[in-house]
């Protein structure tokens, strides 16, 4: 048993509190959102105040009448008001000296689209909050419509494939880079496939939110919308990292660093073939998407190469 204990994953050491959600909640089988939602409070602790909005998370985050699916202090708000509501909570808790970790938890549809303005505003004001985006690359709660985080070429119900259309014609908004360019305290990407990396970033986020705004962009493959077998979502997330489709990095006070540099990145096709939303892409379209991945990765590399800014 002693040698077995040695093998137990170090990730468990990051947990400072127990499960905050009910055993059975309404998320799809295999959805990494459930994993992320249960994981985050365990690392951040019980002073977390969760701020949420209509999204795949809402049926579990919001209660039903007086009943609740979790034990966290929770504030539900309109999609346009997540970051600003969190700022209101955080400002008051700081004013009265109450310990609190105010965490916005929204999908990419809120963060990158309808809730973007207040998010950008809160970042610019360096509000002492954590904003976590789970990126499933579309509006999944309403049935897989495109968002501005939907990648080039992806098929969704509003960017379908037909004789006159080939999926989404434009690129995904590069949210974590956009947020890093707000010069906030801390920005990081994370993946449910790399849980220790994720846990470290949460720990750092909790500390950095005392200085200012923290933005976490977490990859969240959707088994339903992307058409992935439920057991493969973590593999898809892992392959997104290994192909540099979703590089794991952080920017602490403007200092960029790859936290999981991939020695020999795999071709993008090894990622796209795990799901159906890219199944229609021809060779040229695949090459275009690969080019996008290469360019975005080159940007991250260039930012990392700048090193620590002079004091």
């Amino acid at each position: 048993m002693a040698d077995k204990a040695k093998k137990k994953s170090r990730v468990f050491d990051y947990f400072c509190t127990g499960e905050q959600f009910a055993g059975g909640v309404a998320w799809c089988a295999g959805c990494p959102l459930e994993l992320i939602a249960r994981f985050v409070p365990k690392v951040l602790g019980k002073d977390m105040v969760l701020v949420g909005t209509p999204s795949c998370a809402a049926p579990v985050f919001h209660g039903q009448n007086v009943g609740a699916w979790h034990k966290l202090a929770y504030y539900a708000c309109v999609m346009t008001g997540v970051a600003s509501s969190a700022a209101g909570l955080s400002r008051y808790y700081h004013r009265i000296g109450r310990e609190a970790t105010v965490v916005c938890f929204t999908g990419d549809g809120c963060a990158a689209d309808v809730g973007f303005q207040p998010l950008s505003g809160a970042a610019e004001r360096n509000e002492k909050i954590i904003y976590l985006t789970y990126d499933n690359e579309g509006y999944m709660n309403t049935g897989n419509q495109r968002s501005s985080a939907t990648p080039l070429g992806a098929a969704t119900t509003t960017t379908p494939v037909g004789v006159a259309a080939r999926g989404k014609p434009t690129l995904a908004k590069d949210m974590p880079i956009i947020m890093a360019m707000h010069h906030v305290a801390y920005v990081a990407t994370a993946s449910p496939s790399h849980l220790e990396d994720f846990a470290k970033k949460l720990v750092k986020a909790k500390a950095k939110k005392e200085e200012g705004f923290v933005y976490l962009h977490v990859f969240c493959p959707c088994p339903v919308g992307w058409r992935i077998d439920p057991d493969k979502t973590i593999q898809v997330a892992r392959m997104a990292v290994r192909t540099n489709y979703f590089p794991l990095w952080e920017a602490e006070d403007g200092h960029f660093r790859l936290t999981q540099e991939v020695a020999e990145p795999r071709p993008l096709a090894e990622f796209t073939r795990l799901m159906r939303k890219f199944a229609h892409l021809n060779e040229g379209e695949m090459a275009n998407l690969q080019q996008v991945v290469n360019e975005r990765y080159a940007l991250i590399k260039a930012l990392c190469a700048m090193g620590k800014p002079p004091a």
Partner: protein
Amino acid sequence: MKAKKGQVRVITGNAAAAHAARLCRPDIVSAYPITPQSEVTEMLSQFRADGLMDAEVVEVEGENSAMNLVCAASIAGARTFTATSSYGLVFMYDALLETAAYRAPVVMVNVNRETPGIHAVSSGQQDMISTRDSGWVQIIVEDCQEILDQIIMAYRLAEDYDIQLPVMVNYDGFYLSYLAEAVEIPLIEDVDRFLEPLKKQPERPKLVPGRPVGCGTHGIELGYVEARYKHCMALERVLGKVDEIDRGFGAYFGRGYGGQIEAYRTEDAELAILVSGSAAGTARTVVDAKREAGVRVGMVKLRLFRPFPAGRLTAALRGKKAIGVIDRSVSFGWPSGPICTELKALSSGLGSVPILSYIDGLANMDITVEHIGRVIDETAAAARGEPYQEVTWLPLES
């Protein structure tokens, strides 16, 4: 008891609003500038910068964020203040609904201005009318002193344990926002004492880290109905509470406004006009002049628009032979102005007397002495049984 005295200064309506907010010691202030409200936002930032107000002032990137921010802060336990106008008010519409349903006791001034579409940087109550069904308490005031006093009273109302509702204090853009007149600014210690009863009541629900509670749950069937019902009942309680707070304010500071409505020379009047906002001031002078000329006219100033003061309006207007109503906005889909349309809903109490609707004061156009004179003359004619026009757009017909 001797009325508490303050310092008299010549300040604008906007400055009166900012001073009122400062005097109530808010925890969190957040507003986005917009003409003709900007002076309020600027002054609050200056109070903060000068160390005259110990509040967190958050310069948000839009009105929607301002309302979400103060709503959430309020739910955390803060006393909050915000200010807006027109485009800003409608931009925060979703958050307005949420703030009301969350029963967050936010106090906001809305500086009345025309709404988007026919672009107009000018006065009009259309913005307030457009948010009528948001579940807020809506109060309309007449002059700079009333702006200041009503904001202080608004906190007593909003934060009352039996009420717990956001309160919107409306005043005319330009005509009041930029009007400079002598205003008595109370001492902050006196305002503290006036607001003191709020500290002696049960604690309203607050979002506290570590407690397993959630503000904003799904209302499922009867849960939804119950929350809606409670909201409507709270609005009903506002009616009497507004009068009570007004009386208390009058006793303490020596200035009262009548609560839900103010009836001016109506008791022995044969006919009456119903007016709100800055036009009520002008209407007084016209009523006085017409009285001199032998016309038995009175005026009712509508102060509370939501909830609608049906009982007190009926009592003040019952027995009048005709009523003229001046609206500074329109009611899309009804021919008469919105306040007039609502008054007509009281016909069971008022009897089938002529109710004449006048649309005036849109887009900064003046509700002049002549216009109000015409309203009184035509209402008097209707009271005598002469034929009358149901709806008159005064600027188009004078």
